[in-house]
């Protein structure tokens, strides 16, 4: 995104910036695409071109989503970079990391560059995560250095795991050499053939084959141990969904491994018991887990074990979702509902402080991929700001989504907490 030369004063809001350790009423002044000043209300001297009245609102660093499927190149019928980033802006995200399971797979510097070109029409910052292996087939590693130079912020074979231990070991060794995160979709696919949901009482009742929790946690266990073998290797566990996998991450962190993890809103908001009437908008991978898993995830989000909330926004066309549950594509959209779910479930129901929720959307994900000058409102940072009303009650209307796709289980859901404005590079890209 090209920064603007315009200036904006965001006045009277409660500024929450975990990096600057600020949580107080402040004015924020943006100019030339940068944060120029954060000062006590009324103390900013400069004359802004525009003033946004943020009294009663929270002013946060722009939200960062580590896990978004923008579907381009090649799957524009599901989503485009333009529509996906429009949905991101509506959800308060100023930066998104896009996943490489496109057509073709983002496994070359050329395609990474293509995704970042202005012609794609992105309205928020897009940071590609490239494929970890060629065509994400799990066999031959891609050229991490070249991908990093082209602008990729990490590598992953998301949608599939890096299953081979040898391949994962090689990936982590290179990760340590060039300080580059490996993002793992932790699933032992040898145990999940033909499975469409979590293995448990609900899958038995519905007569559907289930994925065990161990199919996830075994891989996380293995990877955390591998990461500890290479000093400096960076492992990021994508969409972590089980209590056991969280325990493995917690252990890794205690042993000073550079292990991070993200959790999706649907995994902290729903369980496998919510799969009603075979609605495939409740089908995603990893699947909705048990109540015990959900409670463990919420505890991890509160106690600091979890680094980020990431949506795993996975748009699919209606003809891929309104079909037999077992034949439906995995994944749901999530950019527009993430904040509302976080405040409703984590803050209102589970008393996690708003400042911690802001951290999970900002400083946390920025640290995972080393985004400099983002995830904070420190002087000189990029002018990426999310303004939100933490008390606003609203209902999500899928028909009005900015995404190209409609596969959300949260249609009609009452939420607390809504985005008021999203500012990217000093430009307002969304007003609620």
């Amino acid at each position: 995104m090209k920064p603007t030369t315009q200036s904006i004063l965001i006045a009277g809001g409660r500024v929450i910036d975990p990096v600057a350790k600020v949580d107080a009423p402040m004015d924020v002044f943006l100019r030339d695409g940068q944060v120029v000043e954060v000062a006590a209300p009324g103390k900013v001297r400069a004359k802004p071109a525009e003033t946004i009245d943020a009294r009663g609102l929270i002013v946060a660093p722009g939200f960062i989503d580590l896990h978004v499927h923008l579907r381009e190149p090649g799957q524009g019928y599901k989503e485009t970079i333009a529509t996906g980033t429009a949905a991101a802006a509506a959800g308060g995200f100023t930066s998104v990391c896009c996943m490489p399971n496109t057509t073709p797979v983002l496994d070359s510097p050329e395609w990474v560059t293509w995704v970042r070109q202005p012609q794609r029409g992105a309205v928020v910052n897009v940071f590609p995560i490239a494929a970890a292996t060629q065509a994400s087939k799990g066999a031959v590693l891609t050229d991490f250095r070249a991908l990093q130079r082209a602008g990729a912020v990490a590598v992953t074979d998301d949608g599939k795991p890096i299953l081979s231990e040898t391949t994962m070991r090689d990936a982590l060794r290179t990760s340590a050499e060039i300080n580059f995160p490996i993002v793992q979709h932790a699933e032992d696919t040898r145990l999940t053939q033909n499975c469409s949901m979590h293995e448990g009482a609900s899958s038995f009742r519905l007569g559907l084959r289930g994925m065990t929790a161990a199919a996830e946690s075994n891989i996380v266990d293995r990877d955390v141990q591998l990461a500890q073998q290479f000093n400096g290797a960076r492992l990021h566990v994508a969409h972590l969904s089980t209590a056991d996998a969280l325990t493995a991450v917690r252990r890794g962190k205690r042993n000073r491994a550079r292990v991070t993890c993200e959790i999706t809103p649907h995994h902290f908001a729903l369980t496998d018991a919510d799969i009603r009437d075979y609605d495939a908008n409740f089908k995603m991978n990893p699947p909705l887990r048990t109540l015990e898993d959900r409670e463990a995830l919420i505890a991890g989000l509160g106690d600091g074990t979890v680094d980020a909330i990431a949506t795993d926004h996975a748009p699919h066309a209606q003809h891929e979702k309104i079909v037999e549950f077992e034949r439906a594509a995995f994944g749901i959209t999530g950019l527009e509902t993430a904040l509302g779910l976080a405040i409703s479930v984590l803050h209102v129901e589970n008393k996690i402080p708003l400042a911690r929720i802001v951290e999970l959307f900002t400083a946390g994900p920025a640290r995972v991929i080393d985004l400099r000058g983002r995830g904070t409102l420190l002087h000189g940072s990029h002018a990426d700001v999310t303004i939100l009303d933490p008390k606003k009650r609203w209902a999500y209307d899928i028909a009005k989504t900015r995404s190209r796709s409609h596969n959300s289980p949260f249609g009609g859901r009452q939420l607390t907490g809504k985005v008021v404005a999203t500012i990217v590079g000093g430009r307002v890209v969304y007003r609620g």
Partner: protein
Amino acid sequence: MQATKLPEKKTAARGSLLGIEQLSAGDINGILALARKLDPRKPLPLLRGKRVLLLFYEASTRTRTSFEIAAQALGSTTTLVLSSGSSIEKGESLLDTAYTLRAVGADAIVVRHPNGGAPNLMASYVDVPVINAGDGMHEHPTQALLDGYTILRHKKKLGGLNVTIVGDIYHSRVARSAVHLLSKLGAHTTLCGPPELLPEVAGTLAKDIRISRSCEEAVRGADVVMILRVQRERLSGLKISLPDYIARYQMTMARLRLAKPGALLMHPGPIIRGLELTWEVADSPQSVIVEEVHNGVPVRMAVLARALGKGT
């Protein structure tokens, strides 16, 4: 931005039968009472002028023919659509097929499908009753109803009976429907099989379910013994040794004798003699396997009459 019009999701049409789980004991008893009043040898024109569409994505002998005979005995016409030889082979989706059947004038759709929940999906988008004739590993509600009907021709009531189901519970839609029905009508159910075919979690399906790994223990004192086939076509990587299974779980005369005198021996079919049961057991005087098939017709007449609003 213009809002997209999304396909409208409905609640299932009145008279749909998607599973036993959603029925009350009163609903079940109502269907069984109606079935007792209906007789395929005395046709009633209750459904004259109605069209029942039978949509079968999976092989079937018993269920398909008995639905056809039941519908015709009530004066309805029937049209059979098989997945092979129809536009389904060309890639038409389940919902588009359902819309097509509705458009040609289906008053009710009977569907058998290899995926659990396929009837639920159809019922959410079409405005005619959908009757589940077996969906994946989920439910086979008319089988459970005809089994309940059969038991009640020999026993006064289901409440308090000890019913033992032996075999491949995990892959069985018959077992899931039977467990719901037996539980709702107050029977004590024992499920028996090896862990691969009967996970512990099966005990959470309904209330009053006991799990046993010993065929002898499970059968002892039973009023009804129901045998299920090992569904080799659904095993999908599970390693089951058939000789071992036969040694531990095959229903033999010696095992059957542990049940109460006069206990019923049931099997939803198809039976594989020499595997889940011996030929002696299949043909024993206690066996009501053939009667079950026979009873499928009046029960399906009752289900169709209920679906098309003639159920009272």
